[in-house]
Each structure stands twice: as structure tokens, then as C-alpha cells.
């Protein structure tokens, strides 16, 4: 329970204090997160400026930032080259991720529930799961040629297997007693699905989605280098090679890292905060098992 339960007139003060302490803690943790990165960038900048490293191979952070500013073209966002690349890449990654979810989750639920199907599919999955999705890229190139379809298909495979695997594991980890509880209450099949299977598998499912998105994002770069015709961050990095434009390559790399971080922390972080962390308090995931 809360340690301070002040009488009514002081409640506002306590709230303000709490808010301030939350803000303070947030700022502190952001600073602690950024500090090593800032130090690293400073060292990098200095070594390049001192001429210890060839700037045409490793441009300084300030140089990269300047290049990013030019590519971003903030004066006219509609025509921004960098934004176009980012939007195209995001669209490809997200649509392949969504497609993977739509197919992998129902399939995972089915395989998790049906023992025979699981026994048949399990050896195949064990073979396919550790396979890097990019390995399929040449095959899709042969079938579909260069373009969005090939890129999305490869990213889809990157996301599909982690999501499928996690869903299966999540469902299989649900004890039969949990199912018995709702069946003894007269639950229909849909009730069982909605009230036990889905929420019960959710913690595993979320980590599968996280992994799937990460795989999709990683696969994207390689797929775009191989198969993109005009746009995408992977394409941008690879195309810059022809002009020896190392700064642009680094801009692409930084964008990939930042967007990856934002998806992981922003999207899946809040998804977890809304579900698992709330159920288990302070992130003590799995304390009930």
C-alpha cells in the first residue's frame, strides 16, 4: 500500500511531489541511457578531427549529422529523400510483419492445441526456425524479380517463424487445469479461446511479436540491398556505395538503429506495460509459474 496517505488538504501537494519525482526519475534514466552514447560520439569525433582515422572511410559524427540534415531536407518534408526512404522501409517491414501475424498466430494456436499436428510440424519447424530468412531472397528474386513483393516475402519469413514458434509454446504452456476451470463453468469453445488460450499465451506471444518484428527489420536491410529498385534504407545504403558516399551509408545505419530501438521500446514496451507488467507488477514476469 502507499506509504503516504495524507489528509485531504495535502493531497494536491503529495500528487505534485509524486509527479515531480516521476519526471525526475524519467529524466535521470534517459540521461544514464544517453551518457555512454554521448561519450562514445565525442571520442569518435575527436579521433577523426585529430586525423587519427581517415575521414573518407569513417566520417565524423558531426559530418554524418550534417549529411542527415541535407538528406532530411526539413524545409520541404514532402520531398525529403530520407523521409521517403524511411517511410518505404517502414511500410515494407510493417506489412510483412502484419501478414506474418495474421498467418502465424492462428496457425500457432492450432499447432499448440493439436498434438498430432504438432508432432508432424515440429521437426519441420525445427529445421526452418534457425534458417536466416535472407537465404530465401535469391529464390524469391527468381520467382518475383526485383521489387516490393520479393522484399516483403523475405521479411515475412523472417517474422513468421519466431511468431509461430512463440505462439505454439505459449499455448502449450497453458496447464490443462486452466482449461478445466472454464470448462467446469460451462464455457463454449469460443469462451475457452477468448478467456484462456489467448490471454494465457499472450506473454509468450508478445515476446514472439517482438522477436518477429526485430527479425523482419533486420531482414529488410539485406532484402532491400538485393531486391529494391528505387527506395528503402537498405537501398539508400547500398546505392551510396557507387558514389563512395560513406556519410550517407552511416545516416542509413543510424536510422535503422534508431527506428529499431523505437519499435522495441515504444511499441512493445508499452504493450508489455499494458499487459504482463500490470498482471505481475513491476515486471516480475512469470512469477506465477
Amino acid at each position, binding site marked *: 500500500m502507499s506509504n503516504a496517505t495524507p489528509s485531504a488538504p495535502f493531497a494536491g501537494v503529495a500528487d505534485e511531489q509524486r509527479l515531480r519525482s516521476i519526471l525526475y526519475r524519467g529524466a535521470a534514466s534517459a540521461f544514464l541511457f544517453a551518457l555512454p552514447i554521448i561519450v562514445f560520439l565525442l571520442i569518435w569525433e575527436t579521433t577523426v578531427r585529430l586525423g587519427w582515422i581517415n575521414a573518407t572511410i569513417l566520417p565524423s559524427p558531426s559530418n554524418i549529422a550534417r549529411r542527415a540534415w541535407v538528406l532530411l531536407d526539413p524545409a520541404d518534408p514532402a520531398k525529403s529523400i530520407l523521409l521517403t526512404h524511411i517511410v518505404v522501409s517502414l511500410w515494407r517491414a510493417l506489412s510483412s510483419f502484419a501478414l506474418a501475424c495474421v498467418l502465424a498466430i492462428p496457425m500457432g494456436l492450432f499447432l499448440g492445441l493439436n498434438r498430432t499436428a504438432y508432432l508432424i510440424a515440429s521437426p519441420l519447424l525445427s529445421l526452418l526456425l534457425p534458417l536466416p530468412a535472407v537465404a530465401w531472397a535469391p529464390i524469391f528474386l527468381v520467382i518475383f524479380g526485383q521489387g516490393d513483393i520479393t522484399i516483403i516475402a523475405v521479411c515475412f519469413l523472417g517474422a513468421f517463424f519466431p511468431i509461430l514458434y512463440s505462439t505454439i509454446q505459449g499455448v502449450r504452456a497453458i*496447464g490443462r*487445469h*486452466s482449461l*478445466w*476451470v*472454464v*470448462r*467446469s*463453468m*460451462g*464455457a463454449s469453445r469460443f*469462451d475457452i479461446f477468448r*478467456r*484462456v488460450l489467448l*490471454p*494465457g499465451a*499472450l506473454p509468450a506471444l508478445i515476446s514472439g511479436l517482438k522477436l518477429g518484428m526485430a527479425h523482419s527489420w533486420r531482414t529488410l536491410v539485406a532484402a532491400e540491398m538485393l531486391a529494391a529498385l528505387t527506395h528503402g534504407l537498405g537501398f539508400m545504403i547500398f546505392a551510396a556505395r557507387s558514389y563512395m558516399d560513406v556519410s550517407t551509408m552511416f545516416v542509413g545505419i543510424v536510422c535503422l538503429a534508431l527506428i529499431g530501438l523505437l519499435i522495441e521500446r515504444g511499441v512493445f514496451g508499452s504493450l508489455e506495460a499494458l*499487459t504482463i507488467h*500490470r*498482471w*505481475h*507488477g513491476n515486471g*516480475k514476469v512469470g*512469477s*506465477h509459474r
Partner: protein
Amino acid sequence: MSVETAKILPLRDGAGTKPKIVAKNVQKYFGNVLAMEDISCTINEREFVAIIGPSGCGKSTFLYLIAGFEKASQGELLINNELVVGPGPDRGVVFQEFVLFPWLTVLRNATLGLDIKGVPRQEAEERARKWLRLTGLSGFENAYPSSLSGGMKQRVAIARALSYDPEVLLLDEPFGALDVQTKNYMIQDLQNLWVEANRTIVMITHSVSEAVQLADRVLILSSRPSRIIADVAIKLPHPRDLRDPQVRRYEDEVTALLSAEVDKAMKRERQTFAGRS
């Protein structure tokens, strides 16, 4: 304990005489392991029956058979004179391991049976709150199970089973995991709840004092493969005090029967062990 349950309890004038649960020569195999040899018994309406026996003798299995989760290999089980074919909302089960849903609050766990039945949310909450109050869980309605102690989880499980008002309550070692203090409170609570709920209760336990304190009848099971080796009627009014010499006498009687069985089982095990080596 809450004020509501602390009222003076009426003397129960014995259970009804209408058979509620009937087991006829029930036998249960797991693969080729015989878990239950031959169980026959009749449990009457509004009776409180305790089942006691050595661990691993098939007590939980018997409860799951009544609940309809498992199927008997031989013989038949009847509820209200009808063959048990599967689980149903007429029988509420409280598992030894609580089996609460971590993604639901205490209140939503307790309303689950009513939600599934399609009872309007407000009515469901009202009924669940009543049982949460009677089990001493007021103020924890919005907590998640992970923040509760073992005793509280157990009480949520009991409130959940009582909220949807099953005719038969099946309890699997409901106090097994509790510390002595909590357990004593819960035994008191269950006595009162039983009067309040006016239901048929089958409780599994491995504690003789629990059985003697609560039940109208105590069925003693043999070690595996199990049979009923004794059926002891406890003809004493409620609430019972364990220090009461009459209660003590029943306790001694059941203990004697049970330890004779455990002795026999141990001897048999040692013999087979000696024979093997």
C-alpha cells in the same frame, strides 16, 4: 472474520437423504497403471463429505471423475441420477493449486463463472463481491493474483467457485498450502460458507483434524489401487471444537483406520522391495 459470517450458526439437522452423487464400481486406469480399483459410494444432497487417504492414492483423480474432467475406465458415476459425461456448471471445482488467471483481477476471476453464463455484469459483480466479502477479500477486488498471498489466492478460488452457485462443491485439499493461522480461519469460514451456501460439498484432505472438524462423513481410501476402506459418520453439531473430547474420539478413530492402512501399504512396499533385491 466478517460480521456477516460471525453470526450464531444453527445446528444442522443432518443432510438430506436424496442421493446427489453416486459412484458404482468405479475403476480408473492410467495407461496400464490401475489407480482406482473399485469405488462405490453415495453422497447425499447437502452432505459435507471429506475424503482422506495416503498421498497418491487417487483422491484428486476421484474428484476429477466427479467433475467430469476424466472418464472412468469401468463403472459409472451419477449426478442427480444422470450419468456424468463431462464437466458442467452444476459442479464447482476448487483446485489444490488455485488455478487463478493472472490476467484477471480478483473481482474478474470471481465473476468468471457468471460472465461465462452471460449474467449481466452488474449482477455478476454484486454476487462475486458478496463471496469476496465473506471470504475476507474486501478491498482486494482490483488486485491481480500475483500480488496476493497463497491463502488469499485460495480464498479467491473458493469465492470464484461459490459465486456461480454450483449445486456441488468439489474441493481438492483446499487448505493444503496454507499456514496454520490462515488455515484455522479458512476452516471457520468454510463451515460458515457451507451453512450459507447450503450445498453438497466433497472435500479432499490429508488432514484428519480438518476432516473430523468439517464433515458429516469421512471416507477413507486405501493406498493405490484405491478402495473405500471405511465410511465414518461424524454425528456432532457444528461448529466443532477440536478440543471437544467427542471430536477427539472421532479423530482418534479415523487416525487409527488411516495409519493401519498406511502401515499395510508400507509393509507391502518393503516386501516387494525386499523380494526384488
